[in-house]
């Protein structure tokens, strides 16, 4: 068949197009409904994250990481904190590590739920979308309780997390997990064996194992081809080596396999979460329950010189000012903020606090560079940090997992039909925040 003699036409898809999410443009050359050539254009949400990080202090970069993958911001927070801690040689106490695992896995579930839901919606199944989003809402409320925000979580700090788990968190989470399992079951019944859905996703968006590896694709997209690569298993971080979970893999590398992979990974994440809640060591509060007093009362005690008395109480402060308890904070005082009762009541605590937050003082991390990666919802989310000894990164590079999948998108789409763009693009789970940074 001589393609040059055929009459083709150009179709510009996006950025203003319902399934391009307003942030990606595909320039298609079409023969009828068949895609003869495809060019992917990215960069519509470029925010100079990496450059911006260079003018921030180590801890101040955390809020910018929220905006990378905004469907699972906690994983970005953790990924960034881990690279800085690796550079600084800090280890977070076990309870802090468990809290990070819990945060990451909740985020992974929300991300996968969103991806499956959005794909279903774009295929015309709005009901499934709303069922899954309702389940995601239960998890977002837990995230809200944990971090004080639904999306802009900014939860981690260098050497710890913002705060300990709120009271009754495990029970509330268990209820939320039950909701998620119900929703997953409903979605499974409505989609997995649905003839129309299967016809739309089976055999479309196929990528071979070799191509996926060659493009550097990771995450569910790679695992759907049968490669069992998962950072949590391949290079365990935090306490992931203590959990019993399987890595679901597909075989054909099509949209259907990716859908099944994500569905199975949600269940695996819930299993990890349940194990984490069972294994998590007790924190300060549960070891020796201390009476809460308002910070200003402690301050008065300090002024009167009752410093021994102060030790008996915990400071009651605004939720946003809550300090890091010892159980979740690395003991390195040059990097982690003291507990608020220390800051408010004695000069050492106050000086410690101010040295860490004052401009050009802060956390001084030794000169060096390192890379560390976590398993993001879309694949390997890596950070490469370079320190010149100042209070912020000299250079920070982010390895966004969906960039590599987007690079392969044009190749996957050629020969497919316009309608196939929808499930394929949906299964890429392109999140422009991390793609364009």
């Amino acid at each position, binding site marked *: 068949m001589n393609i040059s003699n055929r009459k083709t036409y150009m179709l510009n898809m996006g950025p203003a197009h*319902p399934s391009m999410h307003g942030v990606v443009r595909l320039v298609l050359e079409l023969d009828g409904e068949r895609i003869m050539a495809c060019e992917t254009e990215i960069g519509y949400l470029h925010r100079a994250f990496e450059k911006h990080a260079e003018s921030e202090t180590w801890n101040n970069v955390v809020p910018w990481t929220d905006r990378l993958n905004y469907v699972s911001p906690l994983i970005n927070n953790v990924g960034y904190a881990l690279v800085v801690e690796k550079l600084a040689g800090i280890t977070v106490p076990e309870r802090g590590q468990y809290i990070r695992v819990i945060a990451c896995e909740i985020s992974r579930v929300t991300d996968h739920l969103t991806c499956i839901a959005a794909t*279903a919606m774009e295929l015309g*199944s*709005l009901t499934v979308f709303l069922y899954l989003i309702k389940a995601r809402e239960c998890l977002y409320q837990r995230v809200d309780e944990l971090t004080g925000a639904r999306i802009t979580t900014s939860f981690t700090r260098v050497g710890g997390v913002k705060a300990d788990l709120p009271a009754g968190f495990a029970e509330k989470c268990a209820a939320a997990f039950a909701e998620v399992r119900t929703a997953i079951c409903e979605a499974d019944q409505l989609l997995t064996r649905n003839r*129309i859905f299967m*016809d739309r996703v089976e055999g479309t968006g196929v990528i071979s194992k070799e191509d996926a590896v060659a493009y550097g694709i990771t995450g569910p997209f790679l695992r759907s081809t049968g490669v069992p690569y998962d950072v949590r298993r391949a290079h365990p971080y935090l306490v992931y080596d203590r959990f019993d979970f399987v890595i679901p893999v597909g075989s054909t590398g099509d949209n259907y396999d990716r859908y099944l992979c994500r569905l199975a990974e949600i269940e695996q994440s819930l299993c990890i979460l349940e194990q984490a809640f069972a294994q998590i060591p007790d924190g300060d509060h549960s070891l020796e329950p201390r009476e809460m007093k308002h910070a200003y009362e402690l301050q008065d005690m300090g002024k009167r010189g009752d410093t021994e008395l102060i030790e008996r109480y915990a400071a009651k402060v605004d939720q946003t000012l809550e300090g890091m308890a010892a159980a979740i904070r690395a003991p390195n005082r040059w990097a982690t903020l003291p507990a608020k009762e220390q800051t408010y009541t004695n000069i050492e605590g106050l000086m410690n606090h101010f040295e860490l937050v004052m401009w050009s003082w802060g956390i001084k991390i030794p000169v060096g560079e390192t890379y560390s990666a976590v398993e993001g919802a879309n694949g390997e989310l890596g950070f490469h940090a370079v320190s010149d000894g100042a209070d912020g990164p000299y250079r920070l590079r982010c390895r966004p997992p969906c960039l590599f999948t987007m690079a392969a998108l044009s190749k996957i789409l050629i020969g497919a*039909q316009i*309608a196939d763009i929808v499930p394929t693009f949906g299964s890429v789970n392109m999140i422009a925040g991390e793609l364009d940074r």
Partner: protein
Amino acid sequence: MILLWSGVKVAFALTFGMSIAGLLGWVERKQSAVMQDRIGANRADILGFTLIGLFHPIADAIKMLTKEDLVPKGALKPFHGLAPMISLGCGLFCLAAMPFGGTVTVLGRVWSLQPVESSVGLPLVLAALGLGVHGIVMAGYASGSNYGLLGALRGASQMIASEVCLVASLAGTLFLYGTLDLQQAVLWQAAHAWGIVFQPLGFLLFLTAGAAVTKRTPFDLPEGESEIVGYHVEYSGMKFGMFLMTDLIESIVVCCLVASLYLGGWAIPGLDLPAMGLLGGVLMAASFSFKVALLIFLLMQVRWTLPRFRFDQLLDLGWKNMLPLSLANFLVTVWGVYLWR
């Protein structure tokens, strides 16, 4: 007098169509909301009364009528304006031939409750339903947009595929009734039994093909909102509203056809409605409307449950699966009728 009565009936059919189409917008919102654990539209109010969101169709109409009517620079202006009228006109025309009721004797005079009485009522309806696609093709072509053109092409080939199945699935039924007059078909069913009893497969095929003709999920390929946005991508305001309305009216038409051909039309088993005078007339219209409402409920339920087909898969479904099944159904029916008589 006869002329006046005909005028009243046609006006009734049109108002019925237009108002039910408006109401369907509300039904669709509320029904999908119930399915999806939502509340649904409930904000539009008059003097503080929201009436469970029933004012939304009115608010929608006002919004659409007052919106700016945009015509793209590259569009063929006359055809761009004509297209929605053709679509809506064809849809409304179909309703005029529906047997909303049989004949009743009131005040010593025989009144027929069918707006247009014709011995070829059914072909007329099917023809008008098929002609409606010209509106879509014209809209897509005249918009001067590739998205519109794609929608138009999809619309045209989908219409052919589904119309052929629609007629083929009907062949057995018509052979059984021996008439092309919808009123006669209803009377035949009243005398024997509902068409669905004799033609269960035909009923399913006709309903599916009918759903495909109305271009709604899972058959909303000409729109395909997340893929190509559709043939009406370059329309705004009431012109866009007319396309939306056409889809709803076509749904009503298909449901009316199914009700009259397979569910006994206006007849209620066990009651001799034509002999009951005025009450009979009211019951006829009520029974017919109830059956139509039930079918619309069913179609909506399907619409909010299933994902969308792909273009080639829909054509496969039409040409390779439904058409052979329809023809087989026809052959079996012919044999059955031959043996029966």
